[in-house]
């Protein structure tokens, strides 16, 4: 696959057409029908949580949030391949991959709702928190890969970043270190074609992102990021490559962020309605649904039911989330070091004294 779709050729791996037809049987992934259905459900679930979170934000029940609407195949098609022992090293736009690992909507809301507890992930292992400084997580992934390899632990590191992220020096250092170390890392670029307002052409002069793999002597492949099968298939091949001891792989999943960069962003400033329309047609969930329905594995009716079920579940969970215990002064201090230094103890005490004074005056 990596030869056939060598990035110098400029050909993108696509398996499922926007109409939901398999157009490339040769590279169909090995995946059971049951799993495909699971993945589809996860895509729908992710979208439900995403859209609801945007609406909670609009209602003032959530701070600024970064939606992922439209990128479900890209993150779930790749992330669904993760096993228990694997590692997820995300950026901030991989909610579907988070869910696959056991992160809950409550975790997500805690984070975007402004609470550090949203990075605790009590139900997920080997899952890093959201990484805000663009591309920095890519090097962490290389280090985790080294750690796994050195300690002969099973597991592959899945790390995510955007098209914009490829411009940072950290992208370069991360891929270089991992390639020199032959570390078990799959580098996944969710190329949604924009870094906030900046289009890919102004971000880089390379013909595609996959080709950047050549700088590190690793395979690279561009896949249709709205095609669940293409994403899954390339990831599967990448994992095989790694298991054969051949080192890391770069996957570029070409997709589109259908929503805003964050709820504070206004995409109409930098892209057209026409363009948005084109990508609506290529929607990843619609596409996989067409396939499933055509295969008689799913029906519109199932879909309506599922969506409704998820909406209710999510709604209920959100109400629960909103009862989360309030933030305490101690939460500011207690986790910075393993043992709180005297300076911090004192700063906290000073603050408490002030609170007492304030109390005494009111």
């Amino acid at each position, binding site marked *: 696959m990596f030869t056939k779709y060598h990035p110098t050729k400029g050909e993108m791996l696509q398996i499922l057409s926007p109409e939901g037809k398999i157009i490339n049987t040769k590279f169909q992934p090995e995946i059971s029908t049951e799993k495909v259905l699971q993945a589809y459900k996860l895509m729908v679930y992710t979208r439900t949580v995403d859209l609801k979170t945007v609406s909670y934000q609009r209602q003032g029940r959530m701070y600024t949030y970064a939606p992922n609407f439209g990128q479900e195949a890209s993150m779930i098609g790749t992330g669904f391949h993760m096993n228990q022992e694997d590692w997820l090293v995300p950026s901030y736009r991989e909610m579907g991959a988070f869910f696959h690992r056991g992160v809950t909507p409550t975790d997500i809301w805690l984070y975007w709702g402004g609470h550090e507890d949203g990075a605790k992930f009590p139900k997920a292992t080997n899952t890093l928190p959201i990484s805000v400084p663009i591309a920095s997580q890519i090097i962490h992934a290389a280090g985790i890969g080294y750690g796994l390899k050195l300690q002969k632990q099973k597991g592959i590191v899945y790390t995510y970043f955007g098209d914009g992220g490829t411009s940072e020096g950290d992208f370069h250092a991360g891929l270089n270190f991992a390639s020199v170390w032959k570390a078990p890392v799959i580098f996944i670029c969710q190329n949604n074609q924009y870094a906030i307002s*900046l289009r890919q052409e102004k971000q880089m002069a390379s013909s595609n992102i996959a080709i950047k793999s050549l700088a590190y002597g690793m395979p690279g492949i561009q896949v249709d990021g709205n095609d669940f099968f293409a994403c899954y298939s390339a990831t599967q091949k990448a994992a095989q490559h790694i298991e054969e001891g051949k080192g890391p792989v770069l996957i570029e999943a070409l997709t589109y962020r259908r929503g805003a960069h964050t709820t504070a962003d206004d995409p109409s400033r930098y892209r057209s309605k026409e363009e948005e329309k084109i990508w609506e047609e290529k929607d990843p969930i619609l596409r996989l649904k067409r396939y499933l329905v055509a295969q008689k594995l799913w029906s519109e009716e199932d879909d309506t039911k599922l969506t409704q079920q998820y909406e209710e579940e999510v709604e209920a969970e959100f109400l629960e989330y909103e009862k989360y215990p309030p933030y305490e002064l101690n939460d500011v201090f207690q986790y910075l070091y393993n043992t709180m230094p005297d300076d911090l103890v004192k700063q906290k005490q000073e603050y408490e004294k002030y609170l007492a004074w304030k109390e005494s005056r009111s």
Partner: protein
Amino acid sequence: MTLMNMVQSINSALDIKLEEDPKVLSFGEDAGLEGGVFRVTENLQKKHGEERVFDTPLSEAGIIGSAVGMCMTGLRPVAEIQFSGFVYPAYDHIISHAARMHNRTRGRYDMSMVIRMPYGGGIKAIEHHSESMETLFAHVPGLKVVIPSTPYDAKGLLISSIESDDPIIYMEPKRLYRAMKQEVPDGKFQIDIGKAKIVQEGSDITVVSYGAMMKEAREAAILAQKEGYSVELIDLRTIYPLDRKTVAESIRKTGRLLSVTEGPSFSGIGSELVTLANEEAFLSLEAPPTRLAGFDTIVPLPKGEHFYFHTADRILYEVEKLVKY
């Protein structure tokens, strides 16, 4: 004169300098077409062209490193870092080159650049969007650090910064971007870099602050007055070089110093101000010169951020302690 908020007054300063001097450029991530995530550079690209007002690829090292090169060709880049929390990939270029090239080449190349960045907290943002780390620049030889607290000052200081041949770190208190409006001249005017401003005269205690904390400090001064304490309030405006003279004279007069700063306490600007008090006014001190600084912790996420940022009443509390000392 127009009533402007700080976003508008900074935009006006950039507009004027772009208009007046073809050597001036303005660029950064999303700073061109989109006009910046805070809209500070809105309309500037339309007006001054894509070659002089532009978006860069996503690399802070690229932004500042290339600004160093641009200066060598005689340009005067004004580079925007989207949030001060993302300046660190560029830190090497700031500290190793922007701050040093003039000295290194014995004056051959001026680093005539301004590095603008919104800093500080209080806008309920996610991690890395709320820090106040001016010390990391003020401690570095070769830089100047400017922080305005009002729309008026923001404009005058930015114009001076752009005209400065030395590299300027210009930090914008994002919390104040739209917090108040003020009459600001439409045309060009300047405020000297390195000059503090006595915002209010007083006799009991000198309160020194800058940036977003000035707003709280002003309120605190009013509260203090009600309590019968006369505060002399100084807005530093430039952090480095510090206007020692103005601050020292005030401390010698009042005998007391409270510095109010937002960022971490340890070795922060507050400790420099306390040192100043000792160096220049030791024999006049009637109470320990004191700093009120941020906790030496990470700025909490929005749910906890109210614990971190000083309020007017916290300042009052400290003032009272010192006056009663």
